């Protein structure tokens, strides 16, 4: 898997993959070379997930029927 793939996967999928990687590493069943690859991918997953979490926000827009079909406009959520 490339770095691009890491960015495309869903957060939950990334976490689950990370969980599996960690379990595999902890078992010590992999060859050293494979374990290095797993570790590298794990680090990439952690980084992408961190970025996503820190960028998290709630965006709200309104959808209405306009004369030419549905129209979307941004709404500021009253927090």
């Amino acid at each position: 898997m490339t770095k691009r793939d890491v960015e495309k996967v869903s957060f939950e999928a990334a976490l689950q993959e990370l969980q599996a990687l960690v379990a595999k590493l902890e078992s010590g069943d992999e060859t050293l070379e494979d374990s290095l690859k797993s570790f590298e991918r794990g680090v990439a997953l952690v980084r992408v997930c961190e970025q996503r979490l820190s960028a998290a926000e709630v965006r709200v827009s309104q959808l209405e029927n306009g004369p030419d079909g549905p129209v979307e406009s941004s709404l500021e959520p009253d927090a």
Partner: protein
Amino acid sequence: MSQLPEVTASDVIGVSDLVALLRETFEDAFSDLWVEGEVGSLHRSRPGHLYFDLKDEAAQLRCAMFRGAASRLEFELEDGMRIRVHAKVDLYPERGSLQLIVSRVQAAGEGALRLAFERLKARLAEEGLFDPAHKQAIPEEPRRIGLVTSLQGAAVHDFLRALKVRQADADVLAVDARVQGEEAWREIVRGLHLLDAQPEVDVIVLTRGGGSLEDLWTFNREEVVRCLFELQTPVISAIGHEVDFVLTDAVADMRAPTPTAAAALVAPDGAALHQRLLALGERLQRAQHARLRDARQRLAVLRVGLAQPARAFRAQLNTLSAKLNALSPLAVMGRGFSIASRESDGQVLQSATDVSVGDEVGIRLLRGRLRTAVVAVQESE
């Protein structure tokens, strides 16, 4: 027989005229009434008109509700239901009978709604609308969350605040719809269809705050329930408080007891995810360190293992080399012996007769070599 006064033709009116007169009088006097009573002898005609008696302990009146009005009924009428009708009095000329022409119906108290609710629930359940087999899974991380609710209501506020509290990464597309009153169901159905047609919306939340059974009735309307059933997009119904249960809850792919709970269903808890991520990151580092340490140890063991055979080999080599050394002719010559050979062909001499006088003989010493000539041959000592 008593004597009746003479009646002249001018004092007499026809039945039609009287009925017309009565009709006019009633219509003027009783055109805008709310009448409460119990439904009886309910009958639906083929074109969709409804006919029933409205009665109490002592009296009853025939009622007609024409198709247009009947189609706007918020719940289905049942014999025995207590209702209030908005009606005008009409005189039906062909039979000379009085009837109420009903334009609107309200439930009188919760009993009627309760009954209507139970009946509709049973009928739709029979049809399979609430069957778990029809339920779709709610996506874990929706790209866009469709929201149908009143943008003036408390529910939208609760829902969005809950998303923020969870530090959710959420993209909400809201459609404003009234959530109470006669027209509410139309706006809700329209909003649901609008969102269902948006390809990026992969879950829809239908929500409103708490209220009485009557306030929440829109969410028990057959039109709304059927609309939810037909949506392509998974839908969550979050109506009222924990104790409120409406039919949209039964038909939706998932029910949330409150708008806040609905937020929890569509958006993972950001803070919790962060904790989980941190823990996994730590385990990853620790596992890798352990793995490397393990590899280093194995390498050390292998190195020792590699050294072992080499040492044995060297010992063997020493033995061999000592033996070899012992056998070496050089060792013999070290003790003063030398080797003589015929110079012409290099043949090592073992007997004096191997050469003749005048032959050249080479003598190999411990150090250096001599070339000699034979002066005499003595066959034995």
